[in-house]
Protein backbone atom coordinates (compact mmCIF):
# COMPACT_ATOMS: atom_id res chain seq x y z
CA UNK A 1 0.00 0.00 0.00
CA UNK A 2 1.43 3.36 -1.00
CA UNK A 3 0.46 6.17 1.31
CA UNK A 4 0.63 9.83 0.59
CA UNK A 5 -1.00 11.16 3.71
CA UNK A 6 1.07 13.18 6.10
CA UNK A 7 1.87 12.60 9.73
CA UNK A 8 2.09 16.23 10.84
CA UNK A 9 2.83 15.54 14.46
CA UNK A 10 5.97 13.49 13.99
CA UNK A 11 8.95 15.14 15.63
CA UNK A 12 11.04 13.72 12.78
CA UNK A 13 9.42 16.20 10.40
CA UNK A 14 11.22 18.99 12.22
CA UNK A 15 14.59 17.23 12.08
CA UNK A 16 14.67 15.99 8.48
CA UNK A 17 13.77 17.61 5.20
CA UNK A 18 10.74 15.30 5.01
CA UNK A 19 9.23 12.46 6.93
CA UNK A 20 9.97 10.25 3.94
CA UNK A 21 13.67 10.99 4.33
CA UNK A 22 13.46 10.25 8.06
CA UNK A 23 11.80 6.95 7.25
CA UNK A 24 14.55 6.00 4.81
CA UNK A 25 17.29 6.99 7.24
CA UNK A 26 15.75 4.85 9.98
CA UNK A 27 15.15 2.00 7.53
CA UNK A 28 18.80 1.81 6.50
CA UNK A 29 19.96 2.18 10.11
CA UNK A 30 17.87 -0.75 11.30
CA UNK A 31 19.02 -2.90 8.37
CA UNK A 32 22.81 -2.49 8.67
CA UNK A 33 24.69 -3.87 5.71
CA UNK A 34 21.48 -4.23 3.70
CA UNK A 35 21.30 -3.79 -0.07
CA UNK A 36 17.89 -3.02 -1.51
CA UNK A 37 16.49 -2.46 -4.96
CA UNK A 38 13.94 0.22 -5.66
CA UNK A 39 10.78 -1.85 -5.67
CA UNK A 40 11.77 -3.64 -2.51
CA UNK A 41 12.40 -0.33 -0.80
CA UNK A 42 9.05 0.97 -2.00
CA UNK A 43 7.23 -2.09 -0.69
CA UNK A 44 9.00 -2.22 2.65
CA UNK A 45 9.02 1.50 3.46
CA UNK A 46 5.50 2.08 2.08
CA UNK A 47 6.64 5.28 0.48
CA UNK A 48 5.23 6.51 -2.79
CA UNK A 49 7.49 6.06 -5.78
CA UNK A 50 7.95 9.82 -6.19
CA UNK A 51 8.89 10.41 -2.54
CA UNK A 52 11.20 7.44 -2.49
CA UNK A 53 13.09 8.41 -5.62
CA UNK A 54 13.40 12.00 -4.52
CA UNK A 55 14.86 11.09 -1.13
CA UNK A 56 17.11 8.37 -2.50
CA UNK A 57 18.49 10.98 -4.88
CA UNK A 58 19.20 13.35 -2.01
CA UNK A 59 20.88 10.68 0.07
CA UNK A 60 23.01 9.55 -2.85
CA UNK A 61 23.95 13.15 -3.57
CA UNK A 62 25.42 13.61 -0.09
CA UNK A 63 27.19 10.24 -0.32
CA UNK A 64 25.19 8.54 2.43
CA UNK A 65 23.88 5.95 -0.02
CA UNK A 66 25.69 4.17 -2.79
CA UNK A 67 23.82 3.28 -5.94
CA UNK A 68 25.09 0.23 -7.83
CA UNK A 69 23.96 -1.83 -10.77
CA UNK A 70 23.28 -5.51 -10.13
CA UNK A 71 22.33 -7.07 -13.43
CA UNK A 72 19.17 -5.35 -14.56
CA UNK A 73 18.53 -3.74 -11.23
CA UNK A 74 19.82 -0.76 -9.29
CA UNK A 75 20.51 -1.44 -5.64
CA UNK A 76 21.03 1.01 -2.79
CA UNK A 77 23.27 0.47 0.22
CA UNK A 78 24.36 2.73 3.07
CA UNK A 79 27.95 3.91 3.06
CA UNK A 80 28.49 3.78 6.79
CA UNK A 81 31.78 5.63 6.48
CA UNK A 82 29.82 8.66 5.40
CA UNK A 83 29.51 11.09 8.31
CA UNK A 84 25.80 11.69 7.70
CA UNK A 85 24.86 8.44 9.47
CA UNK A 86 26.65 9.45 12.62
CA UNK A 87 25.09 12.93 12.44
CA UNK A 88 21.59 11.58 11.83
CA UNK A 89 21.82 9.21 14.77
CA UNK A 90 22.96 12.03 17.05
CA UNK A 91 20.19 14.25 15.73
CA UNK A 92 17.54 11.67 16.59
CA UNK A 93 19.02 11.02 20.00
CA UNK A 94 19.03 14.73 20.72
CA UNK A 95 15.75 15.88 19.26
CA UNK A 96 13.36 13.12 18.29
CA UNK A 97 10.37 11.87 20.17
CA UNK A 98 11.39 8.23 20.71
CA UNK A 99 7.85 7.07 19.94
CA UNK A 100 8.18 8.53 16.44
CA UNK A 101 11.49 6.74 15.90
CA UNK A 102 10.05 3.41 17.02
CA UNK A 103 7.08 3.93 14.70
CA UNK A 104 9.39 4.39 11.73
CA UNK A 105 11.58 1.44 12.76
CA UNK A 106 8.54 -0.85 12.79
CA UNK A 107 7.22 0.16 9.36
CA UNK A 108 8.91 -2.96 8.00
CA UNK A 109 6.95 -5.31 10.28
CA UNK A 110 3.52 -5.40 8.66
CA UNK A 111 2.48 -8.52 10.59
CA UNK A 112 2.27 -6.80 13.96
CA UNK A 113 -1.32 -6.46 15.14
CA UNK A 114 -0.71 -3.67 17.60
CA UNK A 115 2.14 -1.78 19.20
CA UNK A 116 1.89 0.92 21.79
CA UNK A 117 3.96 2.79 24.32
CA UNK A 118 2.74 2.83 27.89
CA UNK A 119 4.16 3.94 31.21
CA UNK A 120 5.62 7.31 32.08
CA UNK A 121 6.36 8.36 28.48
CA UNK A 122 2.75 7.71 27.42
CA UNK A 123 1.47 9.54 30.50
CA UNK A 124 3.61 12.51 29.53
CA UNK A 125 5.53 12.50 32.77
CA UNK A 126 8.82 10.74 32.05
CA UNK A 127 11.85 11.30 34.21
CA UNK A 128 15.16 11.93 32.45
CA UNK A 129 16.17 8.30 32.81
CA UNK A 130 12.76 6.71 32.27
CA UNK A 131 12.66 3.78 29.85
CA UNK A 132 10.41 3.64 26.84
CA UNK A 133 7.94 0.85 27.64
CA UNK A 134 6.77 -0.76 24.41
CA UNK A 135 4.07 -3.42 24.13
CA UNK A 136 3.97 -5.51 20.96
CA UNK A 137 0.98 -7.63 20.00
CA UNK A 138 1.42 -10.12 17.19
CA UNK A 139 2.59 -13.60 16.28
CA UNK A 140 5.93 -14.62 17.82
CA UNK A 141 7.80 -14.50 14.49
CA UNK A 142 6.62 -10.93 13.84
CA UNK A 143 7.58 -9.85 17.35
CA UNK A 144 11.00 -11.43 16.84
CA UNK A 145 11.38 -9.54 13.61
CA UNK A 146 10.39 -6.33 15.39
CA UNK A 147 12.91 -6.97 18.16
CA UNK A 148 15.63 -7.50 15.57
CA UNK A 149 14.99 -4.03 14.19
CA UNK A 150 14.58 -2.41 17.59
CA UNK A 151 17.99 -3.67 18.71
CA UNK A 152 19.58 -1.51 16.04
CA UNK A 153 17.24 1.41 16.75
CA UNK A 154 18.15 1.30 20.44
CA UNK A 155 21.50 2.95 19.67
CA UNK A 156 19.92 6.15 18.39
CA UNK A 157 16.82 6.25 20.55
CA UNK A 158 16.87 8.97 23.18
CA UNK A 159 15.49 6.51 25.73
CA UNK A 160 16.27 2.89 26.48
CA UNK A 161 13.69 0.43 25.29
CA UNK A 162 11.87 -2.05 27.46
CA UNK A 163 9.78 -4.40 25.33
CA UNK A 164 6.96 -6.76 26.26
CA UNK A 165 5.09 -8.85 23.75
CA UNK A 166 2.13 -11.19 23.49
CA UNK A 167 0.14 -12.76 20.71
CA UNK A 168 -3.61 -12.27 20.64
CA UNK A 169 -4.33 -15.60 22.32
CA UNK A 170 -1.96 -14.88 25.18
CA UNK A 171 -3.48 -11.45 25.55
CA UNK A 172 -6.94 -12.95 25.85
CA UNK A 173 -5.78 -15.64 28.26
CA UNK A 174 -4.08 -13.10 30.51
CA UNK A 175 -6.75 -10.42 30.21
CA UNK A 176 -7.59 -10.58 33.88
CA UNK A 177 -4.02 -10.51 35.15
CA UNK A 178 -3.15 -7.55 37.32
CA UNK A 179 -0.28 -6.47 35.14
CA UNK A 180 -2.20 -6.50 31.87
CA UNK A 181 -5.17 -4.72 33.39
CA UNK A 182 -2.88 -1.99 34.67
CA UNK A 183 -1.28 -1.63 31.25
CA UNK A 184 -4.61 -1.53 29.43
CA UNK A 185 -6.08 1.02 31.79
CA UNK A 186 -3.14 3.39 31.34
CA UNK A 187 -2.76 6.07 28.68
CA UNK A 188 -1.14 4.75 25.53
CA UNK A 189 0.64 6.19 22.55
CA UNK A 190 -0.08 4.09 19.51
CA UNK A 191 2.74 2.98 17.27
CA UNK A 192 0.87 0.39 15.19
CA UNK A 193 -2.91 0.13 15.05
CA UNK A 194 -5.08 1.60 17.77
CA UNK A 195 -8.18 3.74 17.58
CA UNK A 196 -8.74 5.96 14.57
CA UNK A 197 -7.53 5.69 10.98
CA UNK A 198 -4.38 3.83 10.10
CA UNK A 199 -2.26 6.93 10.17
CA UNK A 200 0.77 5.44 11.85
CA UNK A 201 2.24 3.99 8.66
CA UNK A 202 2.01 7.16 6.62
CA UNK A 203 4.77 9.40 5.41
CA UNK A 204 4.97 12.26 2.99
Amino acid at each position, binding site marked *: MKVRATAPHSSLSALFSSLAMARLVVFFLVHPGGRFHLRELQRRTRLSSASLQKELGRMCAVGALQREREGERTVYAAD*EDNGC*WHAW*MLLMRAGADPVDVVREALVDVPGLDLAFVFGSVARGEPLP*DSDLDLFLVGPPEERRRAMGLLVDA*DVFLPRRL*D*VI*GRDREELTA*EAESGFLRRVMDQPKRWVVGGPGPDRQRSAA
Partner: protein
Amino acid sequence: MNPRLRVLLDSRSLLEHSATDAEVAAMWEKALQTMENSRRGLDPSIEFTVAYTAALQTAIALLYACGYRPAGRDHHHNAFAGAIGVGEGELARAARELDQLRLGRHEASYGAALGVPDEQMQAVRESTAVLMREAWSRILVERPALTTVLAAPPPG
Protein backbone atom coordinates in the same frame (compact mmCIF):
# COMPACT_ATOMS: atom_id res chain seq x y z
CA MET B 1 35.09 3.97 12.96
CA ASN B 2 31.66 2.34 12.86
CA PRO B 3 29.04 5.13 13.27
CA ARG B 4 27.21 3.17 15.99
CA LEU B 5 30.41 2.94 17.98
CA ARG B 6 30.89 6.70 17.60
CA VAL B 7 27.34 7.37 18.82
CA LEU B 8 27.86 5.09 21.82
CA LEU B 9 31.05 7.00 22.67
CA ASP B 10 29.47 10.42 22.07
CA SER B 11 26.55 9.55 24.33
CA ARG B 12 28.93 8.12 26.95
CA SER B 13 27.16 4.79 26.77
CA LEU B 14 30.62 3.41 26.06
CA LEU B 15 33.72 4.85 27.71
CA GLU B 16 37.33 4.69 26.68
CA HIS B 17 39.17 2.39 29.03
CA SER B 18 42.81 1.37 28.96
CA ALA B 19 42.45 -2.12 30.35
CA THR B 20 45.63 -4.03 31.09
CA ASP B 21 46.17 -7.45 29.55
CA ALA B 22 45.62 -8.91 33.02
CA GLU B 23 42.24 -7.21 33.25
CA VAL B 24 41.22 -8.58 29.85
CA ALA B 25 42.40 -12.06 30.81
CA ALA B 26 40.55 -11.94 34.14
CA MET B 27 37.26 -11.00 32.49
CA TRP B 28 37.74 -13.70 29.84
CA GLU B 29 38.44 -16.27 32.55
CA LYS B 30 35.27 -15.22 34.34
CA ALA B 31 33.26 -15.63 31.11
CA LEU B 32 34.72 -19.12 30.55
CA GLN B 33 33.88 -20.17 34.09
CA THR B 34 30.33 -18.87 33.76
CA MET B 35 29.93 -20.68 30.44
CA GLU B 36 31.07 -23.94 32.07
CA ASN B 37 28.60 -23.40 34.90
CA SER B 38 25.77 -22.95 32.40
CA ARG B 39 26.40 -26.48 31.08
CA ARG B 40 25.89 -28.32 34.34
CA GLY B 41 22.33 -29.45 33.76
CA LEU B 42 20.68 -26.47 35.37
CA ASP B 43 16.99 -25.71 35.36
CA PRO B 44 16.31 -24.06 31.95
CA SER B 45 15.42 -20.65 33.36
CA ILE B 46 18.63 -20.62 35.40
CA GLU B 47 20.69 -21.95 32.52
CA PHE B 48 19.34 -19.15 30.35
CA THR B 49 20.43 -16.50 32.84
CA VAL B 50 23.87 -18.06 33.39
CA ALA B 51 24.56 -18.50 29.66
CA TYR B 52 23.42 -14.94 29.06
CA THR B 53 25.77 -13.75 31.79
CA ALA B 54 28.65 -15.59 30.12
CA ALA B 55 27.82 -13.74 26.90
CA LEU B 56 27.73 -10.44 28.73
CA GLN B 57 31.13 -11.10 30.33
CA THR B 58 32.50 -12.09 26.92
CA ALA B 59 31.28 -8.84 25.39
CA ILE B 60 32.91 -6.88 28.21
CA ALA B 61 36.21 -8.77 27.79
CA LEU B 62 36.12 -7.94 24.08
CA LEU B 63 35.45 -4.27 24.78
CA TYR B 64 38.30 -4.18 27.33
CA ALA B 65 40.62 -5.64 24.69
CA CYS B 66 39.53 -2.93 22.23
CA GLY B 67 40.01 -0.09 24.74
CA TYR B 68 36.43 0.47 25.93
CA ARG B 69 34.08 -0.38 28.73
CA PRO B 70 30.29 -0.14 28.94
CA ALA B 71 28.93 2.70 31.08
CA GLY B 72 27.10 1.72 34.24
CA ARG B 73 23.47 2.37 33.46
CA ASP B 74 22.11 0.01 30.81
CA HIS B 75 25.46 -1.71 30.78
CA HIS B 76 23.96 -4.89 29.32
CA HIS B 77 22.71 -3.03 26.26
CA ASN B 78 25.88 -0.95 26.09
CA ALA B 79 28.08 -4.05 26.22
CA PHE B 80 26.28 -5.86 23.40
CA ALA B 81 25.83 -2.70 21.32
CA GLY B 82 29.55 -2.02 21.80
CA ALA B 83 30.39 -5.56 20.68
CA ILE B 84 28.26 -5.01 17.56
CA GLY B 85 30.14 -1.75 17.02
CA VAL B 86 33.65 -3.20 17.28
CA GLY B 87 32.80 -6.43 15.50
CA GLU B 88 31.67 -7.53 12.10
CA GLY B 89 30.42 -10.71 10.46
CA GLU B 90 29.67 -13.58 12.85
CA LEU B 91 30.81 -11.61 15.88
CA ALA B 92 28.39 -8.74 15.23
CA ARG B 93 25.58 -11.17 14.34
CA ALA B 94 25.96 -13.09 17.60
CA ALA B 95 26.13 -9.88 19.65
CA ARG B 96 23.00 -8.59 17.89
CA GLU B 97 21.16 -11.84 18.63
CA LEU B 98 22.14 -11.62 22.28
CA ASP B 99 21.05 -7.99 22.51
CA GLN B 100 17.74 -9.07 21.03
CA LEU B 101 17.42 -11.74 23.72
CA ARG B 102 18.20 -9.06 26.32
CA LEU B 103 15.47 -6.86 24.90
CA GLY B 104 12.99 -9.73 25.08
CA ARG B 105 13.85 -10.84 28.62
CA HIS B 106 11.03 -8.75 30.05
CA GLU B 107 8.44 -10.71 28.09
CA ALA B 108 8.61 -13.44 30.69
CA SER B 109 8.86 -11.09 33.66
CA TYR B 110 5.26 -9.96 33.78
CA GLY B 111 1.91 -11.69 33.93
CA ALA B 112 1.62 -15.42 33.50
CA ALA B 113 4.71 -17.52 34.03
CA LEU B 114 5.86 -18.26 30.49
CA GLY B 115 9.21 -19.84 31.32
CA VAL B 116 11.97 -19.84 28.73
CA PRO B 117 10.80 -21.05 25.32
CA ASP B 118 12.97 -23.76 23.78
CA GLU B 119 13.90 -21.55 20.85
CA GLN B 120 15.19 -18.83 23.18
CA MET B 121 17.16 -21.41 25.11
CA GLN B 122 18.68 -22.67 21.89
CA ALA B 123 19.39 -19.13 20.71
CA VAL B 124 21.22 -18.14 23.88
CA ARG B 125 23.32 -21.34 23.79
CA GLU B 126 24.28 -20.95 20.15
CA SER B 127 24.84 -17.21 20.17
CA THR B 128 26.93 -17.34 23.32
CA ALA B 129 29.10 -20.08 21.80
CA VAL B 130 29.58 -18.09 18.59
CA LEU B 131 30.27 -14.87 20.47
CA MET B 132 32.91 -16.59 22.61
CA ARG B 133 34.61 -18.18 19.62
CA GLU B 134 34.69 -14.97 17.59
CA ALA B 135 35.56 -12.71 20.53
CA TRP B 136 38.45 -15.00 21.50
CA SER B 137 39.98 -14.63 18.03
CA ARG B 138 39.47 -10.88 18.06
CA ILE B 139 40.90 -10.46 21.56
CA LEU B 140 44.06 -12.26 20.50
CA VAL B 141 44.39 -9.92 17.52
CA GLU B 142 44.03 -6.90 19.79
CA ARG B 143 46.18 -8.37 22.59
CA PRO B 144 48.78 -10.70 21.02
CA ALA B 145 50.60 -10.96 24.36
CA LEU B 146 47.66 -13.04 25.61
CA THR B 147 48.08 -15.72 22.94
CA THR B 148 49.57 -18.22 25.35
CA VAL B 149 47.44 -17.07 28.27
CA LEU B 150 43.81 -17.09 27.15
CA ALA B 151 42.20 -20.51 27.17
CA ALA B 152 40.14 -21.27 24.09
CA PRO B 153 36.37 -21.33 24.50
CA PRO B 154 34.70 -24.74 24.76
CA PRO B 155 33.34 -26.12 21.50
CA GLY B 156 29.79 -24.99 20.73
